[in-house]
């Protein structure tokens, strides 16, 4: 069994890039300075303003309430009108009781491709039918 001993290896700073260590330490400072100069110059440019030409009309801006009404109220009004145009016909039909046709057919009848006589004449049962040759089926639901 061998014994463990501490070994110290001396490191050479920035030996692979070839730059002197003083230049590498200054780089963050140079970057921060460039950014600061850009921000200061940009803020100076933003503060520059020109007065409107004298020939322009001096229109006063709307108040916040009026602006909100225009930006929110008009779209809401358009949405409400479209909603009513879409759903109002079906709502009116439902109000008239058209949702359940079964209630209507309790007192009314309707023929599709029916006979030339009226249903009332048929229901009177004056004509007797020969049932022997007829087919078909019945059901309830």
């Amino acid at each position, binding site marked *: 069994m061998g014994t463990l001993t501490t070994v110290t290896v001396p490191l050479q700073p920035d030996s692979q890039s070839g730059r002197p260590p003083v230049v590498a330490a200054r780089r963050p400072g140079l970057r921060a300075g460039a950014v600061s100069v850009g921000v200061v110059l940009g803020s100076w440019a933003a503060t520059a303003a020109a007065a409107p030409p004298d020939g322009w009309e001096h229109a006063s801006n709307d108040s916040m309430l009026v602006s909100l009404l225009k930006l929110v109220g008009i779209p809401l009004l358009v949405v409400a009108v479209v909603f009513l145009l879409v759903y109002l016909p079906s709502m009116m*039909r439902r109000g*008239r*009781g*058209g*949702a*359940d*046709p*079964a*209630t*209507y*057919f*309790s*007192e*009314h*009848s*309707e*023929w*599709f*491709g*029916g*006979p*030339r*006589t009226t*249903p009332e*004449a*048929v*229901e009177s*049962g004056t*004509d*007797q*039918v*020969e*049932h022997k*040759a*007829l*087919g*078909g*089926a*019945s*059901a*309830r*639901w």
Partner: protein
Amino acid sequence: MPVPGGEGFSAAERQQIDKAIRAAEVESRFEFSVYVGPADEDTRDFAERLHGELVTPARSVLVMVDPVARILEVVTGEQARRELDDNEVRLAIAEMQSEFATGGLASGIVRGVNRLAAHARGPRTLHA
């Protein structure tokens, strides 16, 4: 006493039923009629009387629906019965029942008429 309301079928539903009947007549060469309304107590006898009043009963297929009593009758004439037997009618009726049970009165009639016509047409023969 039931309260009458609405207009029965909408215009679109009437058009669908009319279209189904026309297509069924073209497909099967039989006459199809649909009666929707109240029936007598003996619904089968009532349906057969309605069928007898059609223009050509022997070549006609009548579908009678009483939505209030929830009764469905299909009557086939003598000639129509040769192509459309009672078992095939029962298959169409089962399809209509399932549609009626979900509240689709017009769609059930359309499906039933389509099914009856498909059975009445019979298999297509390649050699006459």
